[in-house]
């Protein structure tokens, strides 16, 4: 195809460029600026080179927050993806119950994150919360404000409650796009229920599941509000995930240099994992 060269076209790009510059590039560059310098306020900066990066990468505090973060994201993915697919598979495909299910499924997604945290905090309180009180009545020694296991259990349960719906809705959309002829052909070919899932449903859901995993990975890896409101990162540092730790460092201790370095490292980890994962999935796609 022949395209005409017209330099005036750049004028159309400028508004977007300015917009992106002001809401992304300029703030990011500020962070980059902090990451390489030390400041005591009054706009006085001293060059520190890669010192903050070395400090963060060698600090136990960062290592353990990162470890907790991977553990948390790993657990919620392992629970939410199969659970979401399972719920989507068992949802009705036609009739009025479709809309009922879809609306019920969307409910948790519509609640603001800090409200979710507050809700679960009250819900799980050992003395007055419905969940906490019931568990204790049933003979479990449950107290998420004191015990590490209980805090993790509650945080994960909250996230599963809040976000599994997203996986469900995406999987359901993928399932609905499968033409009935596929199921009919499978029926005639004598395929078992498992074979239908393995050879028809799963391959047809691959694209939406890739998106679901990416979204759930990014969101859970950057989770802040909900655990902050629920546990405040405690007990001790047990549920202090990367972003909570980052805010503590930046706003609690006002260590702007190390916090900026940590933000950049954090950012690159998310970017790298998403990039690798996405390319792996798409590479398989091309082969087939």
């Amino acid at each position, binding site marked *: 195809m022949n395209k005409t060269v017209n330099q005036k076209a750049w004028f159309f790009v400028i508004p977007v460029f300015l917009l992106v510059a002001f809401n992304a590039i300029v703030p990011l560059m500020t962070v980059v600026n902090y990451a390489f310098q030390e400041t005591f306020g009054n706009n006085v900066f001293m060059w520190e080179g890669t010192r903050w990066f070395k400090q963060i990468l060698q600090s136990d505090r960062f290592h353990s927050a990162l470890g907790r973060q991977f553990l948390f994201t790993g657990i919620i993915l392992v629970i939410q993806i199969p659970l979401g697919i399972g719920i989507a598979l068992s949802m009705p495909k036609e009739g009025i119950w479709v809309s009922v299910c879809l609306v019920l499924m969307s409910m948790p997604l519509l609640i603001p994150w800090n409200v979710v945290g507050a809700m679960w905090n009250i819900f799980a309180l050992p003395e007055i919360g419905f969940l906490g009180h019931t568990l204790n009545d049933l003979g479990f020694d449950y107290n998420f404000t004191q015990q590490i296991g209980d805090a993790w259990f509650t945080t994960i349960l909250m996230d599963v409650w809040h976000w599994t719906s997203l996986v469900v809705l995406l999987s359901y959309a993928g399932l609905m796009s499968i*033409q009935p*002829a*596929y199921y*009919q*052909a499978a*029926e*005639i*070919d*004598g*395929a*078992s229920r498992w*074979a239908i899932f393995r*050879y*028809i449903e799963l*391959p*047809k859901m691959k694209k939406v599941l890739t998106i679901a995993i990416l979204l759930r990975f990014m969101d859970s890896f950057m989770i802040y509000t909900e655990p902050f409101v629920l546990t405040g990162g405690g007990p001790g540092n047990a549920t202090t995930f990367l972003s909570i730790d980052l805010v503590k460092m930046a706003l609690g201790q006002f260590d702007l240099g190390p916090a900026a370095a940590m933000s950049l490292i954090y950012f690159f980890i998310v970017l790298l994992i998403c990039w690798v994962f996405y390319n792996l999935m798409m590479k398989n796609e091309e*082969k*087939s």
Partner: protein
Amino acid sequence: MSKITLKELSHSYLSTQSKKDDWALRDVDIDWKDGGAYALLGPSGCGKTTLLNIVSGLIKPTKGKILFNNEDVTNKNPVERNIAQIFQFPVIYDTMTVYDNLAFPLKNRGMSNNEINSKVLEIAEMLELKSTLSNKASGLTADGKQKISLGRGLVRTDVNVIMFDEPLTVIDPHLKWILRSKLKELHQKINRTMIYVTHDQTEALTFAEQVVVMHEGQIVQIGTPVDLFEKPKHTFVGHFIGSPGMNILPCKISKGEVYIDDNKITTHQKIKDKNFSKTEIGIRPEFITFSKEGIPVKIVKVSNTGRHKIIETKCSKGKIKILSKSSNEIPTDSAFVSFNKEFTYTYGDDWIIE
């Protein structure tokens, strides 16, 4: 292999039926002989796919019975009925290779690997898929994929009936010919009952020994291609089959005689006087000739298709199309036409009067 009988079959997609239009299929009675090649022909929405899915067991009919070799299979699923069906759009298992796709129905039935291997190779040979057997099925072109779908249906040798639901829709025209003759050849070779659904008359007439023509959920005629052409039992068959279709003109019947205006028409049948809300006369364009006397017409348009001329004329009751040899002389303005009485039929309320 088996004989298939449909008894008083009706189907509706609604839970309650009050009027005629609520039924997708009405009072279908068919006998399909073992080993025959049949076609279901009709326009989109006439109920032919519904009928096919009822035979295969994907849909349970609202009323009526399906018998395979006189055994009632109405409540059996497709696996129990042991049938094969090929769909309009290619259905393939994306993640499998071509080989695994073809082997899938056999594997599900617990066949040994050796048997599977020989069957798959045989069918791949026949459909010219041998060179692609180890490729991923999703990388193939639309007609390659449809060949796999065909292959999966044909690979099982013990099926009662193989059904085709407009299988050549997505195939290129030149390949259509090849695949169609392949199917025909295959039918002669394996001698299995085959039912072929299509809205394309050429496809139906070339494939089948017997064609079932459907219209608005009803069977209007079952017959050989020649029957359908020479003696349509319903006006729909008349204008659906043939190109151009049958001329249908309103007529008057009195005392056993048929008239268009005041011109008496001699027809093939003896006419009994009955009360019809509408009476029509049907004559194919092939059986009309220009003559000295008869029905007066005005020539509207002449188009030449090479071997034939299609002459569009107008009489007092409507259009009459005439097909005549290219070499024949055509009158220029007004003329008279006469009908070959062997092929002239009268229809009362759309059904042939006999």
